[in-house]
């Protein structure tokens, strides 16, 4: 089975069966990265473009490695600003790239919905590698993969996501993905960082991390961005860390065998203490490892869906 659509724009647009297919394909691809020769010939001759309008190391590298391990040709185009600033529209930039016969465009953009513009206009497959505060589907899928790998299942688990929910595309994709897979999602943070109607997406909101973590199987911390302090959303790092940061004491409230996740990059001592980040429950680096396998699966299944292999 392959993916039904030309593009992967968000978890919102995937069916449960497609998510399961991505995860099981990733399981078989994970082994490839442990070989001496880390390559399969599946996508030889395909051209993939990493189009990143926002700085990123982890996600860009992960997609690049995934494409290379599938033997695709991949090039990176990075711009710290929108192409509009340079006087070219996003659509024109993308059409120019496609004119060079790309098969797939992986796009990261600071504005929500930007990949949809590309998907509508282009014949190439489009993968959303993070758009504004909207979605980051490959992150949610690698998180799901990691949870399944560590805990053996997802259905029925209590999963707490703590931090800046309002500005987090990781949170949105995870809420949607974990809901589709039958987990109970709990959100926590100061009310300034939690949109009022977010519960309608299928999550319960807590203001005390102790309540959100109580009996949790998974605790997922989100990066807190310092510029939010300037916009008056919280008074400062010290107070944030005290009321919402994850430390040993709070971890103890979780279920035995809890796993601690973070999409990175982490602010040590702010949203997560060093002993927790490096502690025995932390699976933060497993997430990174699994990211490559999951992205290989996404790229492979989207290509296969177009009858190309």
């Amino acid at each position, binding site marked *: 089975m392959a993916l039904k659509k030309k593009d992967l724009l968000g978890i*919102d647009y995937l069916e449960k069966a497609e998510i399961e297919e991505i995860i099981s394909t990733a399981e078989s691809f994970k082994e490839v990265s442990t070989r001496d020769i880390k390559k399969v010939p599946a996508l030889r001759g395909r051209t993939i473009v990493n189009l990143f309008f926002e700085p990123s190391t982890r996600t860009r590298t992960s997609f690049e490695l995934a494409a290379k391990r599938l033997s695709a040709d991949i090039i990176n185009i990075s711009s710290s600003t*929108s192409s*509009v600033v340079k006087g070219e*529209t*996003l*659509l024109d930039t993308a059409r120019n790239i496609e004119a060079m016969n790309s098969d797939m465009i992986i796009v990261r*953009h600071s*504005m*929500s*919905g*930007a990949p*949809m*513009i590309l998907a509508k206009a282009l014949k190439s497959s489009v993968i959303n590698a993070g*758009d*504004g*505060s*909207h*979605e980051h589907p490959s992150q949610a899928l690698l998180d799901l993969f990691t949870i399944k790998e560590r805990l053996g299942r997802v259905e029925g688990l209590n999963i707490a996501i703590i931090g800046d929910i309002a500005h987090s*595309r990781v949170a*949105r994709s995870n809420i949607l993905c974990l809901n589709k897979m039958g987990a109970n999602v709990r959100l926590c943070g100061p009310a300034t960082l939690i*949109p*009022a*109607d*977010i519960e*309608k*997406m299928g999550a319960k909101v807590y203001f005390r991390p102790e309540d959100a973590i109580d009996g949790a199987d998974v605790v997922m911390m989100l990066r807190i961005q310092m510029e939010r302090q300037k916009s008056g959303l919280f008074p400062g790092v010290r107070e944030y860390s005290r009321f919402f940061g994850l430390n040993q004491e709070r971890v103890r409230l979780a279920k035995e065998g809890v796993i601690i996740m973070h999409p990175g990059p982490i602010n040590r001592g702010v949203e997560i203490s060093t002993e927790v980040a490096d502690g025995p429950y932390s699976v933060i680096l497993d997430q990174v490892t699994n990211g490559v396998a999951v992205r290989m699966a996404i790229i492979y299944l989207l290509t296969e869906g177009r009858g190309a292999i």
Partner: protein
Amino acid sequence: MTLIIRGGRVIDPANGMDGIRDIYIEGDKIIQPPKTKKTSSSEVIDARGLIVAPGLIDMHCHLREPGFEYKEDIASGARAAAAGGFTTICCMPNTNPVNDSRSVTEFIIGQAKKAGFCKVLPIGAITKGSMGTELAEMGEMAEAGCTGFSDDGKPVANAEMMRHALEYAKTFGRTIISHCEEPALSAGGVMNEGAVSARLGLRGIPSAAEEVMVARDISLARLTGARLHVAHVSTAGSVELIRRAKAEGISVTAETCPHYFTLTDEGVVSYNTYLKVNPPLRTEADRKAIIGGLEDGTIDVIATDHAPHAASEKDVEFDLAPFGISGLETALALAMALAHSGLIPMAELLRKFTVNPALALGMAPPSLLPGSPADIVLIDPETEKTVRPEILLSKGKNTAFSGLVLKGWPVMTIHEGKKIEFKH
């Protein structure tokens, strides 16, 4: 030559007239039907099955000239207005330069006269450059033909400035039209704040951004006794505030636009920038409250807030697209749905397009009695047409209603006794 509109259902809200009769026009005036057959030549328009009403008035549109002629110019906008059944339109001052002086006002009126499709009454800026810091020369602009004042698009943030604006406009018998938006609350927002914005990760504009300003301006209207008109009401809370203010006897009128009683923020899920408008499309509960406000008279006026933009400006990231919907040519057809569904009687609906905007601006209400100017619209209430960007005469093809089949369209517009020619 006499023009005779024969056999139509004449609805003249100002005079409580609704029945089949003939209208006679000579020159630019409606005349008394002659007692005997005249020898002079006449042209007969067969209006059987049509509604004959006073030409519509749009008290809120953007014609973009001077400064943004690539979006629209006065001639193209006035022609689109005539196609939409309007014979009088009021254009907002957010041009470049801003219409904050007699010379810009005179330029606009001059361009409109040259174009000739309908009457254009400029709305002058409240403050110089619409910057919110110094009053513009309202007296001289009023003298030159400005029919009201507004810093539309740039709300007057300073409450004391707004107070003085209301007082000063009152001196010259003019209405202040308030674009109610608390800029600090709406900053960076691109759509309604709610469940949909939460899901889409788009920055929201809360209903409160509109409502705190409606509340402020109602208080200032009470304080000053000046005439306040609230532009483009979009939220249930605003409707309630205006309802209470009217019950209290405060001199306040209000308008809404067809998109607020037709669409909701659910439509934005596809990041369709053609639905990006300010104030934003709200929830179903707001949409219903807007219709409730129209039904009980809380909302006096239906205006278009016609905001034409070039396609290249709308075909970008949602955050970057400009706010606005091209609305002159679809307003009546969208409003007709309210009459067809029985929510608002036809005569009452037409009142919101004719008598009420005139009264809100302190003008004489349009009428079809002999002696009145021959500004008339003929409406076919039964004809159905699909909205498509390419059927619009406006340069702004940015309709939010593409693909919608609407029933009831204007079929002829008569301005100053002349049939306005336009091709669809």
